[in-house]
């Protein structure tokens, strides 16, 4: 491990990517991920690796496709409205099974939105913002340390499954400064060669990163992809359950919001309310088994997000109506006020149902 450093999340992701053996980074300026692009500009060239500030996000993701086809670890980063521009490229990477790591530092939406931190790309990331039956592996860090750790994991999973992997982080994670330690750097030449890399066909038959044109070819390809996704779902789910064993209220949140929720759970415990926290780390594949176990003894589930309930829809699906679900979300960059949420949770515990009272005054409050 490195010594402990004090770094911005964006820069920590850059350093973690370099230590993961990334050989090519392509990016385009957009807030709140700019420090990552600048970090790569400072450090990739001096290491003899590739950095290009491309003319668009579209070129960035397609250059990632090129470099990764040619057999090296490649990466791009962006934010929300500009992540939309990358979606066709991500879908194409999934189609031709080319690994890539993509970082989304979420800002406000829809559309151009604003530059403030939100979680409003959950659906785009988790449901597949591009066309077709594919999945992106989506990792949601809640700290600078975890952002660095998940960056390494993203490269590993992306190579293992020959599939794009995404770091989906609230802009807050990119902007905040925390202490972080890094694992020892990987020498890119130690990464196993890909047996599908386009390197010139010297001494072997030609390789093609090629489309599947007939109905039969494409359906068989899709069947194989679905099997691969199932294996990934069976193998790669990650989550954290805190104080959930005896919890009567289980709060569910991801990323930066889970930091607020964790503190709130501690405060509720201090006043005698048995609260717990379930935090998915992989948003796809989602750790539904752990979620079901975490809420086993719960009277109610409280979902908190910095969006209008994108993950909450999935929580409802996973829990199949077995528990009452209360949702609260803020949009546009406002931060959840945990004092308000605590007051509402107290009411839920005491069977006083006024969860929606603040609806429209402090963001969105829904009962599901």
């Amino acid at each position, binding site marked *: 491990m490195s010594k402990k450093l004090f770094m911005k999340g964006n820069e920590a992701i850059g350093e973690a990517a370099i230590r993961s053996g990334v050989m090519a980074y392509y990016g385009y300026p957009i807030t709140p991920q700019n420090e990552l692009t600048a970090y790569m500009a400072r450090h990739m060239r001096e290491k003899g690796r590739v950095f290009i500030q491309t003319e*668009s996000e579209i070129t960035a993701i*397609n250059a990632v496709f*090129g470099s990764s086809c040619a057999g090296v670890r490649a990466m791009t980063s962006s934010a929300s409205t500009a992540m939309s521009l990358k979606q066709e490229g991500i879908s194409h990477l999934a189609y031709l099974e080319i690994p890539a790591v993509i970082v989304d530092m979420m800002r406000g939406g829809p559309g151009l939105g604003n530059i403030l931190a939100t979680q409003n790309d959950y659906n785009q990331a988790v449901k597949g913002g591009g066309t077709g039956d594919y999945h992106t592996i989506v990792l949601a860090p809640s700290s600078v340390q975890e952002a660095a750790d998940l960056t390494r994991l993203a490269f590993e999973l992306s190579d293992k499954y020959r599939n794009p992997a995404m770091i989906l982080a609230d802009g807050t994670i990119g902007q905040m400064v925390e202490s972080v330690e890094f694992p020892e750097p990987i020498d890119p030449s130690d990464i196993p060669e890909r047996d599908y890399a386009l390197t010139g066909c010297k001494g072997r038959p030609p390789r093609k990163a090629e489309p599947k044109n007939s109905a039969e070819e494409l359906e068989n390809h899709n069947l194989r992809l679905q099997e691969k996704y199932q294996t990934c779902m069976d193998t790669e789910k990650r989550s954290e359950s805190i104080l959930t064993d005896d919890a009567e209220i289980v709060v569910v949140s991801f990323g930066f919001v889970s930091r607020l929720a964790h503190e709130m759970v501690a405060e509720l415990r201090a006043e005698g309310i048995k609260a717990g926290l379930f935090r998915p780390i992989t948003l796809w594949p989602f750790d539904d088994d752990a979620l079901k176990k975490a809420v086993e003894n719960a009277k109610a589930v409280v979902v908190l997000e910095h969006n209008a309930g994108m993950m909450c829809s999935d929580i409802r699906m996973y829990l199949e109506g077995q528990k009452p679900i209360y949702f609260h979300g803020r949009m546009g960059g406002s931060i959840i006020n945990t004092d308000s949420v605590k007051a509402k949770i107290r009411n839920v515990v005491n069977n006083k149902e006024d969860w929606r009272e603040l609806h429209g005054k402090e963001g969105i409050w829904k009962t599901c």
Partner: protein
Amino acid sequence: MEKKAFGRPASLNDKIFTYCPGCGHGVVNRLLAESIDEMGIAENTIGVAYVGCGGMLYDFFNIDFAFPLHGRSPAAATGIKRVRPDKIVIGYQGDGDLAAIGTAEIIHAATRGEKLTVIFVNNGIYGMTGGQMAPTTLIGQDAATCPGGRDPEYHGKPIRMCEMLAQLDGVCYAERVTIDTPAHIRAAKKAIQKGIRNQMAQKGFSIIEVVSPCPVQWKLSPVDAYKRIEREVLPFYGLKIFKDTTEEEER
């Protein structure tokens, strides 16, 4: 022993071209394959296809090939070349791919001076999707999306990419050729080989625009389509070396 004077280039596999009768892509594919053979670079070359009729070439070549998204061929080629600078990376694009949806990609790959060779097949129409107007469709030319002929006031005017790209400092070589006569075909092959040599000599970005017939979407017989090139297309898309900084260096 009798000597075989003409056969399939080694860089092409046994698959039969899927191009329509008289289509120029078959000729240009073959010229590229012959060039690769004659230069002995098949094992050291990575091809980058595109979305459009000629993009099927990935399936016909005995070399490594990537199939990128529509218009993004220069971006993918950049990504390959930058991490494999010792390989020869050849892009092949049509006019919808290069001059419409991929305009930004070609301009910036060229202006960065990526060490790439791009073969740009300009047949003035969208072939695969059914004969829609391309950025290169000539004034008065009929197409599915400019019925009755391209009206410059309503549909806009055609674009000259080679002229435009020649203005960029990253471009070392820009030439427009065609394949309507044996002499022009020989010149086209020479241009392709020069573009590849430029890349091997690390000289910069080379673009070879090939004016090519699309008999089906031009609604002409193959013979008439080839005749139309000289009569209607070359007066607008003139054959010319627009830029060659490499010759200057050689002198």
